[in-house]
């Protein structure tokens, strides 16, 4: 029981970290960035390539996260900015991000091949920690720790800094923000940088945790991430955090008690029930605010 709770928190921390970036872009632009999972994959591969090149993991991780952020800025420039201001930019942005996802996946396939790649065995010290009857590896603790720290930093950044206020202002109304002197394009680019960096961090941690990275590895979190941001309330960062951990725990307990065949069925049934009770998700903003 205790062990399964740990497993759930561990899995949930990666889901949450992935979904926080996902929901940030949605909150700012009202657009789903479907290339988020591809950035997740590319970042994991970048970290792997750096470690293979002899770099320490503690340098490779921030480098890969920064690279993911840059990929996010590129993504915004190519897939979203040219479409901005058009009448149907929500749908066309969705499609162009899907195209970028395909391009990113093809790049990963071309460079790293279709087979599963792995970090060298001594990348991370292999130490097991016991808590009561449960065990967790040092790596798992670090993953949960890094996820929580990154999510806390993002929350503080959005709530307390000038940059955070600008991003929130753009999320509220780009036009009003522009009138108040906010550089909207810059704020959006920053949001993409943060979003992709967090997605990239989730990718590296996922790659480390399960140590099997392939060009389609993003698919295993893509739908989960979507479920998490809907469950948490579209655009809500705290909602994504809570929903991420919740989904991780639900999945683990479903697999343990009902079998892995039921995992997605139960997860999405919970999602459905929550949406019936609270159509805007757990932390969704009230409908009146848009008026």
């Amino acid at each position, binding site marked *: 029981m205790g062990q399964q709770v740990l497993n759930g928190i561990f899995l949930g921390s990666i889901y949450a970290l992935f979904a926080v970036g996902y929901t940030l872009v949605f909150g700012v632009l009202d657009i789903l960035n479907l290339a988020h999972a591809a950035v997740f994959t590319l970042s994991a591969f970048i970290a792997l390539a750096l470690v293979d090149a002899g770099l320490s993991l503690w340098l490779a991780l921030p480098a890969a996260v920064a690279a993911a952020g840059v990929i996010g800025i590129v993504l915004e420039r190519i897939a979203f900015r040219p479409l901005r201001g058009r009448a149907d930019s929500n749908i066309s942005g969705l499609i162009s991000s899907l195209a970028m996802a395909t391009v990113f996946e093809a790049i990963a396939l071309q460079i790293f091949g279709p087979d599963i790649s792995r970090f060298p065995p001594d990348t991370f010290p292999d130490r097991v920690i016991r808590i009561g009857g449960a065990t967790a590896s040092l790596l798992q603790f670090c993953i949960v720790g890094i996820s929580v720290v990154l999510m806390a930093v993002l929350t503080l950044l959005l709530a307390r800094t000038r940059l955070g206020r600008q991003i929130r202002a753009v999320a509220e109304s780009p036009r009003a923000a522009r009138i108040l002197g906010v550089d909207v394009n810059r704020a959006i680019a920053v949001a993409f940088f943060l979003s992709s960096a967090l997605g990239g961090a989730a990718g590296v941690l996922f790659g480390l945790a399960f140590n*099997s990275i392939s060009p389609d590895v993003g698919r295993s979190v893509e739908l989960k991430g979507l479920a998490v941001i809907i469950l948490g309330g579209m655009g809500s960062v705290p909602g994504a955090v809570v929903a991420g951990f919740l989904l991780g725990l639900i999945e683990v307990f479903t697999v343990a008690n009902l079998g892995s065949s039921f995992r997605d069925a139960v997860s999405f049934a919970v999602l459905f029930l929550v949406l019936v009770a609270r159509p805007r998700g757990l932390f969704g903003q009230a409908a009146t605010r848009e008026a």
Partner: protein
Amino acid sequence: MSLARRWTLPLALLLSAAACKDKGTQSPAASGGGGAVIGASLSLTGPAASYGAQQRAGIQAAVDDVNQPGGVKLTVLIEDDASTKEQGITVFQKFINRDKVSAIIGPTLSNTASAADPLAQQAKVPVLAVSNTAATGITDIGNYIWRDSLTEAQVIPGAFKKAKEKLGFKSAGVLYGNDDVFTKAGYDVMQKALSDLGVKVLGTQTFAKPDRDYNAQLTALIGAKPDVLVVSALADNAASIVSQARQRGWTGPILGGNGFNSPAFIKNAGAAAEGVMVGTSWNSLSQDPANQKFLAAMKKAGTNPDQFSAQAYTGVVILAEAIRQSGGKTGREDIEAGLGKVKDLETPLGKFSFTPNRDAQHEPSVQQVKDGKFQIVQ
């Protein structure tokens, strides 16, 4: 143009002569008159070439061993089936109609066998498969088709029995991939083997091929406190499952299916693979005189022995025994009748008999990962 045409015919003749000469050298055995002529259809080129090379080495070593004074006289013609059905059929036709062989060894792949064996069945030429492991579609082609290679369904129950004698486990936790024909079929065999051995299954968990996280399944299985973990998975999943099981603190034994029988598994699982047990049909450490003789012959030939060379070597030994059983007569019907009398024959694979369905029957072995390599469990 006319020059080219004038030279085409002589050139073609020259080339075909060279080709014939090349084929002539393919028959390695002494061609001193009399004795039985056996055809061997092996995949010396194409995707299965690495198996074919091992089989050729095994056959050549066996012919030298069998052709001792006082033994049975055998000549083996080796032809390349190129790992394809088409060339396999051509080779079989040549053996049956031109070389008029007494029996055929091979072909290397089950796939080729399914196409070529019916020709031999129709011509009433006995065929002894030495590497086909498909459970159906080989020996059920007809009564002239025999094999000395164990099917996958035969290896697992025997391997589990041996592992149980060794480890004395009474309960098991089972994890298998339920979205793949091979791993699901492996699970069915494992489940039956466990219940036949009276092993209590304390929990059964499933996963899907794209899954990366097996912690929930493993925690549930380990929580039931079984004596052993049984896993049916392809090599990639297997490596992750074993690594995560060790991280979850599982120090007990892990029994794998045929998917584990891959060097990639040990490479990817690293230290976590230590102690994992898998079934195999050849015991490289067997001290039986027949196996020692095989090992010595392979050493003399400078080839590293493996399961494929052992099974090919055994094929020749079995055919020699069949000829002996029929009183030294080497006709096709004589060998067919002789094969039916082969029983408890000492071979590198162990004491060998045929099942009533002409499939192989001998004790499989268990190998365990030790120091990063598969090693036979005594």
